[in-house]
């Protein structure tokens, strides 16, 4: 379950990345389309300008041609009629021709080929004009000769050559125009193709993005539903588990209770009849004493031994063992009873709790010359009696297992604490005899103790303390080195864990 949810998370990330990539691609395509549109637009503008230019050249060519034709017409009129009015028109048309040729030259300044042609036009015009001026004053025979060979006249030839050049130039300009139109069309076509491709790409990106987003949304919804279902299920599961635990706990409590009680019953007899035996033995012993004093027959040594040594020894062992058994049973009973006590959470200043504990142990502390210091401690919400029991057990242990005989090392017990992430802890640190590593867990077991058995006790305190700590939603840990001292850490929730109910 966990891993599939994690991988779906990974898929989400991948899908998101893909969506971003696609969106970026779409925007890039848009930018490209806009850029090429701008380029095409500019190209179109340039082309249009060129077309206008070509048209202007053509118009200029036409204008020049018409001015030249007008010159020729005027010359012919003049030759034929000798009317001086034609000379005026001729001069006017010549000026016009030069003027228009200058204009043409300016227009074709960008085209060397056309410029060369324009230069040729100028040359033709110059020869023509010179010829005209030479033939202007011809009279009589000369004129007749001119008229007779007019077809081969220099001026006519020049006009023809000029016409040819004008046509050449017009054709060149037309070819240019066609070229430019073609190029414009090609560019337009390319632009159209590019635009269509971009449109297709954007469409593709949009569809892919939409599909991805839709899939993501569907997955999101599915996982949300799943999450809600799991969450609901989790509560049920937790409730069921808690119920089971409570039942199990109750059963254990009940078991311990019944066992300890039923164990007790035979003990009453063992103790009782041991006492009766003792009483009987005393009676026999007294009788034997009395018999010896009265001079009756002395009982044999074996009888005397049995009555005076064997019987009291056996009875003594039975009694000590029974007493020990009684203490153990009582310990189990106490544990079981502690487990059943109703817990009453309240606000506890652990520093105050520890001051009280240290106060109650003051006599022993003074007697052993121990230095006990309580540092800054957190405030928790918990059951006062239970917390007091745990802490006082830890402090008592620290005090109990100091090494009073060890020279140059006075007993030091320090209590410090802290809190974070909802947990509070109290460390009880001593420099006592310490606990071997292999016994670190064992000291928390019921009836188990560690090290030299030179102190009274049944091995109940820490087992009890840890059981209590568990019940309060906390725990107890130990860090210790043999001969160096021990640190017992009680960890408790800062706030009361309301899940605890008494069974």
């Amino acid at each position, binding site marked *: 379950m966990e891993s599939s949810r994690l991988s779906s998370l990974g898929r989400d990330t991948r899908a998101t990345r893909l969506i971003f990539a696609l969106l970026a691609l779409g925007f890039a395509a848009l930018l490209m389309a806009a850029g090429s549109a701008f380029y095409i637009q500019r190209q179109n503008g340039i082309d249009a300008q060129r077309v206008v230019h070509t048209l202007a050249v053509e118009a200029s060519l036409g204008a020049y041609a018409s001015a030249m034709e007008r010159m020729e017409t005027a010359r012919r009129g003049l030759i034929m009629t000798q009317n001086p009015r034609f000379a005026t028109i001729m001069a006017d048309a010549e000026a016009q021709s030069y003027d228009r040729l200058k204009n043409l030259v300016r227009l074709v300044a960008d085209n060397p080929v056309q410029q060369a042609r324009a230069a040729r036009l100028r040359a033709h015009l110059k020869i023509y004009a010179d010829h005209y001026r030479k033939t202007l004053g011809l009279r009589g025979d000369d004129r007749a000769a001119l008229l007779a060979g007019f077809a081969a006249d220099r001026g006519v030839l020049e006009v023809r050559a000029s016409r040819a050049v004008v046509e050449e130039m017009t054709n060149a300009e037309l070819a240019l125009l066609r070229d430019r139109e073609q190029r414009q069309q090609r560019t337009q076509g390319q632009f159209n193709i590019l635009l269509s491709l971009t449109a297709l790409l954007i469409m593709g990106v949009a569809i892919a993005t939409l599909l991805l987003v839709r899939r993501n949304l569907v997955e999101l919804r599915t996982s949300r539903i799943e999450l809600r279902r799991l969450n609901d299920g989790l509560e049920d599961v937790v409730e069921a588990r808690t119920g089971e635990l409570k039942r199990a706990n109750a059963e254990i409590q009940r078991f311990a*209770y019944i066992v300890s*009680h*039923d164990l*007790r*019953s*035979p*003990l*009453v*007899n063992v*103790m*009782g*009849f*041991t*006492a*009766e035996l003792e009483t009987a033995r005393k009676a026999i012993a007294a009788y034997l004493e009395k018999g010896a004093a009265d001079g009756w027959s002395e009982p044999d040594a074996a009888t005397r031994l049995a009555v005076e040594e064997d019987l009291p020894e056996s009875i003594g062992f039975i009694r000590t063992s*029974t*007493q020990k058994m*009684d203490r153990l049973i009582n310990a189990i009973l106490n544990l079981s*009873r502690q487990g059943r006590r109703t817990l009453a959470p309240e606000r506890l200043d652990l520093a105050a709790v520890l001051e009280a504990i240290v106060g109650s142990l003051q006599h022993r502390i003074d007697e052993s010359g121990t230095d006990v210091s309580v540092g800054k401690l957190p405030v928790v919400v918990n059951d006062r009696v239970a917390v007091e029991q745990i802490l006082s057990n830890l402090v008592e242990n620290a005090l109990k297992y100091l090494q009073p005989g060890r020279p140059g090392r006075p007993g030091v017990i320090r209590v410090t604490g802290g809190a974070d992430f909802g947990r509070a802890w109290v460390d009880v640190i001593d420099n006592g005899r310490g606990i071997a590593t292999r016994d670190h867990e064992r000291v928390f077991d019921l009836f188990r103790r560690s090290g030299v058995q030179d102190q009274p006790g049944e091995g109940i305190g820490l087992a009890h303390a840890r059981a209590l700590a568990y019940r309060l939603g906390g725990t107890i840990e130990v860090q210790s080195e043999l001969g160096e001292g021990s640190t017992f850490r009680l960890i408790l929730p800062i706030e009361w864990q309301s899940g605890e109910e008494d069974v």
Partner: protein
Amino acid sequence: MSDQKPVNIVMIEDDEGHARLIEKNIRRAGISNAIHHFLDGTSALEFLYDAAEGPVRNGPALVLLDLNLPDMSGTDILAKLKADGSPLRRTPVVVLTTTDDKIEIQRCYDLGCNVYITKPVNYENFADAIRQLGLFLSVIQVPDPDPA
């Protein structure tokens, strides 16, 4: 006269050893009343209600009751004795048992038990408790049972 009738002690105790120790110590306290001992609840109830020399037919009684019995719970017997309309509801009942659970003790008193004594495992204390009970029995006034 009913005043002169001796008080019968009815002891309901499944552990013979306990019964013997209790009897011994009661005797040591100087109580010589008859002690009727029963090992289970059924025969005890039969004696209490039906026997010719039982308390209903024949004079006052005092019941020593253990709570852990093989056939029924001592509290059931207690409830029956102290029930409304029972001829023995004024008969003193001393619960003498190993159970020292607070809830159990409260329940016994709620049901009408007159004295609750926990059997101490320590024999000196045990003997002491029984002897004191004996002294208590020597001064106690026990009513006749109500006519059935």
